[in-house]
């Protein structure tokens, strides 16, 4: 049994390999880029607009609204990065309804690449917002003793992002594979439906966690937003009067 689509190799020539992960990632990139290009080629601002433009507007405004709620104030600035993450992860799990397709996010290399993008983007956005000194000072808060722990948390949450997405996607494919050998007729269909739901939730969580990390890096000097860090944010439990 294959643990990841890395081991399904389509073409090999010496050092170069074309495995299923790369091929399906390229396919998804082509689908997303060509789809957006085709839709945005003829945008209209009056009331008669195409249905595809409506679809794209719904998606983009929904993502922007979510980013605003996390506390990143000009959402248009961050929607390019966070929205791409969301759309790629969501599309890679939605395409599992195509037979023969394997989601590239069920390979640890793809999810590590996505998590490394977040790992690089968080300091970049933070430095752009507060300058290098202001960003680096945030590591020594509340005291200098917390410095190594802050650095460790920076690394461990990158690892957690990668392994969480990989584990969820891989377990979906793995469970369907195991169930096909036990109850091959109806039950895998329901697990596929559950896998679609899990994929959408994971895409949401991946992008919202990236947004929370960026928000924590950019706004730590200003007034604390409603959800600065997931570990510190508490739902308001004050009794309703």
């Amino acid at each position, binding site marked *: 049994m294959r*643990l990841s689509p890395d081991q399904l190799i389509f073409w090999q020539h010496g050092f170069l390999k074309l495995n299923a992960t790369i091929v399906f990632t390229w396919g998804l990139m082509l689908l997303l880029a060509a789809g957006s290009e085709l839709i945005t080629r003829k945008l209209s601002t009056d009331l008669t607009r195409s249905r595809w433009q409506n679809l794209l507007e719904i998606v983009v405004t929904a993502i922007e609204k979510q980013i605003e709620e996390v506390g990143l104030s000009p959402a248009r600035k961050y929607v390019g990065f966070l929205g791409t993450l969301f759309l790629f992860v969501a599309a890679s799990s939605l395409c599992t309804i195509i037979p023969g397709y394997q989601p590239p996010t069920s390979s640890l290399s793809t999810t590590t690449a996505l998590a490394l993008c977040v790992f690089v983007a968080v300091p970049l956005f933070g430095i752009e917002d507060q300058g290098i000194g202001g960003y680096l000072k945030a590591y020594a808060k509340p005291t200098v003793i917390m410095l190594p722990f802050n650095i460790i948390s920076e690394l461990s949450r990158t690892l957690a992002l990668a392994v969480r997405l990989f*584990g969820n996607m891989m377990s979906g494919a793995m469970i369907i594979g195991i169930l096909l050998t036990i109850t091959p007729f109806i039950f895998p269909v329901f697990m596929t439906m559950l896998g679609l739901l899990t994929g959408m939730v994971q895409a949401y969580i991946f992008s919202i966690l990236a947004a929370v990390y960026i928000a924590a890096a950019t706004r730590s000097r200003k007034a604390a937003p409603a959800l600065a860090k*997931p570990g510190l944010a508490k739902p*308001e439990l004050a009794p309703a009067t």
Partner: protein
Amino acid sequence: MDSSTLVAIASIVTAGLTTGVGCMCPALGEGRSVSTALTALAQQPDASATITRTLFVGLAMIESTAIYCFVVSMILIFANPFWTHVIAQTAGK
């Protein structure tokens, strides 16, 4: 018992234990957090957006521990490094 049998027994038993315990404890944690979030939702329906988003982020954090256990047991069963080592040693003899 030779060493390959011992490695196989240890791997299989540990894989089962890992997934068992690693599903049980995050399930308890997720149940607690969902019930608390439901209480908060019932008390303050206006704050539902914030509560739901925080709940989702927290559930993802909790669930990732279960996912780690699952990944470890999958590695133990399908991609066991010790098993590969023992097999390579036996073949080398």
